[in-house]
């Protein structure tokens, strides 16, 4: 069970900071950060700069992403924004628009 779950019907506007696992099935606007992993479910809509140890996107993210570890865009997921991460995967069926900085 994730530490924080934003359900499908819920929306959060503002600064969202966490130090535990976050799962978003609803919507988040503003900033979203976690010292742990963030997962955006298929119904999740995020319009925010995202900072996380790792990020998984099955829904929609619009904003710049900064991850210490990895970013995974799942099939059906959509990410528009710049990604800074040491590892990035884009699944078949995912959409992505932005720059990638793998810090090489």
């Amino acid at each position: 069970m994730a530490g924080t779950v934003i359900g499908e019907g819920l929306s959060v506007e503002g600064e969202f900071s966490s130090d535990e696992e976050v799962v978003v099935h609803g919507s988040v606007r503003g900033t979203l950060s976690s010292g742990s992993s963030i997962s955006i479910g298929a119904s999740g809509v995020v319009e925010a700069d995202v900072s996380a140890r790792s990020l998984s996107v099955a829904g929609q993210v619009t904003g710049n992403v900064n991850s210490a570890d990895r970013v995974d865009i799942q099939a059906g997921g959509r990410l528009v924004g710049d990604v800074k991460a040491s590892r990035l995967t884009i699944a078949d069926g995912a959409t992505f628009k932005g720059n990638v900085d793998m810090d090489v």
Partner: protein
Amino acid sequence: MVVKRSEGSVVGAATEITGNVSGRGALRVDGRINGSLSVDGPVEVTAGSEVRGPLRAESLVLDGVLEGDVDVAGAISVGPRARFQGTLRGARVTIAAGAEVQADLQTDFELKLSI
């Protein structure tokens, strides 16, 4: 409260939100929210959590710290570890022994003067 995965929401103990939270579904707050909370569903503010701002919900179970005006359609239950300051408005209000409450209390009923 049992929270279903995609319908219910949980603001975990290590999570802080500064801003507005709105929508539908059950919500449990174990962490901190600074801002307004408006939910079509039951809200639970658990012991150790903090909410500062106005709160609207279908029902409220409070056992944490809440500072703000509460407007609830149904029942409000203030538990023994709760600390509350503000207005409590609900159809029914229960306050447990041990709760620290400084409130303007409004419950919905009609005072029948004739028997």
